């Protein structure tokens, strides 16, 4: 399984050597992760077994005895590995290499980091991969942003880096308190903290994760970065990277600083619900499609965070499912915007319209992604959103009413976006121009997931449900120790 980390790194180097690669070779590179996953079928099957907790599968001493190169797997990790290694090839299909040669190596480099984040079972290793995944996105935005690349990038990078450092401080503090100073996952969460300690340690984790997710009001880096970054950068950021933050909450924050949960729960819940409404209301008024998606994403991930902090089964299951679904949908949306911008020269809703007329297939695929995001039943958005809202409802009725506004607002901004880009009268730019079918290939993959998750969510939930149960058990046990 460590190949999941090393192979993409090697392939990143290989791909950096040549500048003009055939898109099919790139696809093969990008598919490597998925191939490794299928090759390790037995390990994965074990990961989704009943009562499966976070099993160690790789363990080398690394920095002395305290820090190990230790990877683990369970259903949660597996599910996010699937997301990462499915989305990377999908994103790679949308890349035109001729203009941006560094994208591919950077993306593969990032894949290694992401796979590492989801598998790391050692505090410092987790931190290492966390930062490793950041580096490629730094270069991507720096090299290929359409405007203000330096300002946007440096702000984004420094801002998230400050959060990460806070997490590092928390990890080190935990490490000093653990048996033999070990950073092993299980040793860290066995550390007993006083409430005050826990609040500080928790603050470190939460800061890192809140910035990455991003949670209102820590989202300030997000709109500009999503808007100006190259399309693939936005896809990687919103599709996979922000899941690092949500995953961090589940896997690291809750068990590590469980004593502080009661303290932070109402605060984060309120922030998350504010974010849901706030992002949605702003999204309604955006004309730049990428910025619109950025704010809609803020709204959607707010709901996921709220579900996690509801700390119940439906919240955890809904959050995981929705992490996957949001990844698929937001990447689908960015691909669609990218296609529109490439073919029609704009992504401003005021300058588009009528694209559906000559692009029937694209219209259908794009619409599927849109209704997936709107969470219409029979599409992938519905089951996750249902579970998340249910979990928030079980936590607090009022929060659920406000969070539930998302189903109204999301319909407003998504259909508005679709209307003004695809429907209505054509203008001189959109008249009779047909998008080449080859550009639509990644959208087919997205559409497959829109329908299959929408119809059979249990197929997907079977992968992680045992693990969420046992993780919730761990968290509630840890909370129980104190109270």
């Amino acid at each position, binding site marked *: 399984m460590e190949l999941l980390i090393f192979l993409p790194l090697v392939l990143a180097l290989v791909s950096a050597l040549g500048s003009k690669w055939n898109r099919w070779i790139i696809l093969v590179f990008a598919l490597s992760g998925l191939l490794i996953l299928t090759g390790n079928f037995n390990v994965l099957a074990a990961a989704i077994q009943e009562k499966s907790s976070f099993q160690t599968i790789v363990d080398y001493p690394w920095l002395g005895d305290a820090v190990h190169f230790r990877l683990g797997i369970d259903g949660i990790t597996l599910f996010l590995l699937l997301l990462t290694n499915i989305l990377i090839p999908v994103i790679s299909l949308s890349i035109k290499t001729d203009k941006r040669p560094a994208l591919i190596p950077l993306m593969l480099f990032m894949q290694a980091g992401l796979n590492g984040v989801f598998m790391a079972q050692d505090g410092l290793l987790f931190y290492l991969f966390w930062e490793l995944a950041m580096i490629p996105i730094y270069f991507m935005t720096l090299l290929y942003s359409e405007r203000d690349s330096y300002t946007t990038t440096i*702000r984004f990078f420094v*801002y998230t880096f400050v959060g990460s450092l806070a997490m590092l401080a928390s990890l080190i503090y935990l490490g000093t308190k653990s048996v033999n100073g070990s950073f092993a996952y299980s040793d860290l969460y066995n550390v007993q903290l006083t409430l005050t300690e826990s609040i500080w340690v928790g603050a470190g984790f939460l800061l890192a994760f809140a910035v990455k997710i991003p949670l209102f*009001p820590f989202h*300030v880096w997000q*709109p*500009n970065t999503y808007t100006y970054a190259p399309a693939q950068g936005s896809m990687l950021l919103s599709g996979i990277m922000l899941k690092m933050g949500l995953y961090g909450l589940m896997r690291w924050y809750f068990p590590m600083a469980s004593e502080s949960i009661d303290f932070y729960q109402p605060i984060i819940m309120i922030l998350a619900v504010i974010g849901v409404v*706030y992002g949605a*209301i*702003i*999204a*309604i*008024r*955006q004309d730049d499609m990428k910025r619109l998606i950025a704010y809609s994403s803020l709204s959607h991930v707010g709901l996921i965070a709220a579900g996690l902090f509801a700390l119940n*089964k*439906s919240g955890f*299951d809904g959050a995981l499912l929705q992490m996957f679904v949001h990844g698929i949908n937001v990447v689908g949306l960015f691909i669609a915007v990218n296609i529109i911008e490439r073919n029609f020269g704009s992504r401003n809703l005021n300058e588009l319209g*009528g694209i*559906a*007329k000559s692009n*029937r297939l694209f219209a259908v695929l794009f619409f599927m992604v849109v*209704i997936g995001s709107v969470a*219409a*039943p*029979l599409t992938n958005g*519905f*089951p996750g959103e*249902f*579970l998340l*809202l*249910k979990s928030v*409802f*079980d936590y607090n*009725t009022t929060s*659920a*009413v406000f969070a*539930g*506004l998302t*189903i*109204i607002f999301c*319909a*407003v901004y998504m*259909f*508005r976006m679709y*209307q003004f880009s*695809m*429907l*209505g*009268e*054509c203008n001189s730019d959109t008249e009779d121009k047909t998008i080449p079918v080859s550009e639509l290939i990644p959208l087919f993959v997205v559409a497959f997931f829109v329908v299959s998750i929408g119809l*059979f*969510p*249990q197929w997907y*939930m079977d992968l992680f*449900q045992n693990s969420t*149960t046992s993780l919730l058990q761990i968290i509630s046990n840890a909370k129980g120790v104190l109270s």
Partner: protein
Amino acid sequence: MNPIAIILLFPLLGFILNGVFGHKLPKLVSSSLGALMILLSFVTAISQWSQIAFDINGSISWEAYTFFNLDGLLFRASFALDRLSIWMTLIITGIGTLIHLYSMSYMDHDKNPAKFFSYLNFFVFNMLLLVLGSNFLMMFFGWEGVGLCSYLLIGFWYQNASFGAAARKAFVMNRIGDLGLLLGMFLIVKNFGSLEYNEVLPAIAEGSTSNVVITSIAILLFIGAMGKSAQIPLFTWLPDAMAGPTPVSALIHAATMVTAGIYLVVRCQAMYSLAPMAQELILWVGLATALLGALIGLRQNDIKKVLAYSTVSQLGFMFVALGVGAYTTALFHVTTHAFFKALLFLGAGSVIHGVQDRQDIATMGGLKKMMPITYITFLVGTLAISGFPLLSGFFSKDEILANVFHHNIIAYVVLVFAALLTATYMFRLLFLTFHGEFRGTDYKLSDVHESNWKMTLPLIILAILSVLGGALNLPHYLMHQEGFLASWLKPTFLIFEHAEHSDLATEIGLISVAVFVFLFGWFYSRNKYISKSESPESGSEGIAKVLANKFYIDEIYNKLIVRPIEFFGDVLFALFDTLLLYGITFSINPILRFTGRLNRKIQNGNIEYYLIYMVGAIALLLGLNLFFA
């Protein structure tokens, strides 16, 4: 294969086939395919009738699969064909078949009929999910699915931006209701640990649940019904929905989808019977809607808008029935309304076709000579909805009025007034369209043509149903026993439905009022539009202006809700997000730059300075050392 699966499969198949291959097929093939699929569904449903009728508790169920499973809390994709759902299924597929047949001709000139039939089949599929689902989740699937199809079909001619706006408005307003429904479902799961009808409803009927919980659930579900069934305050989308092709208005926005709210309440009869506060709410909301719709309908000049407001008003009548606990009556009116309102809409479509896509009745008049079949069937529809004795609408409306009479006399008076308005606006519509002088200016009466058989046949069948539909539930005073529908539905109701039977004198009194109401509406409109041959009011002043402008409700919503949200969005974006939040966060930049500059002055790279710092620091340390020692 389970019959329910077959019933669902046909329309789904039609959707997929026409959606994927339709544009490559000849128009006739794709449209016949669409119609055939619904017909097959209809036939399958009929074939199951006897099986359900045979056994008093008979129902066919189908467990397709587990949608999701939360630690043993199962959310199932499961379905049931019972007495209530087969009734709805027959309405949906039966009228659906007729409307598909009609559409074959109506959409013939369209560029893309395959797309139309694909959407229409998908609508039927979702509507069937709604009524066949055996739990709230599947019902919700269909519920939102029909909303989506409604969006697609209202905006069918997508190049028209205002149609697109109407489509989005319909979807969003429905979603406001859906939020209520969703919260209601969460409350159900929380209290009963299930969403299955046959687990939740019996538990409620047992009567041990707290009244607060039942009432809250009932009201939340009713909020959903308000959206879907266009009740105050969520009704303004329905008139705008007329932007869609006319068969869509007939099927979705009159006969089937908009009655989903009534279906929901009837399905949850046990719950509403035990929630008198919710019932009272339903009664008054329905009453207000019935009145408001009828008032606005008086002064509309668009043939479809009149019918749309009429639908809003008639849905109000149905909710009034539900509000007084007359569930069977409500469903009876759903049924007869499906017949005559589908008939009226299809008739309107035939007129619109006949006069080359005009909808303003100010430019019509005297069309009866040119379109005899359309005229006669439209007349039948008008008589039925206005309550001409012995036609279907007479019986169902009379039953509602009788039930309300026994419940609340004020509500009765208001409802009679609404019925009076109904007869008035319907005859106004009929006379202005078909009678009197031809008022067209930019086209000739001789250009007007009757529609072909594919369109007139459904009209004739629906006209017959509108005449005979009353037989489905003949009143007690005629038969001295329960009507057919009442005895049919009885086993599905968990709580005994108390039926009011008036004595003969009261009944005769009620019928006389109903007949008077009909005669008044007919006479008033006849006097005004035929005898005095007034042309349609432009509604430029006084109360007529208020009515013609629909009480300015759209404008009020715009000012009070839409604009503030948009304004809020702009302010949050420009001031809060961009200026304040982004500004404050990165105001740290100049601070860092300033301290950096200070720091730079010290570290200026001159070795002499560094030596001075060093010597100074050593001196300081030594000094401190001496001092403290």
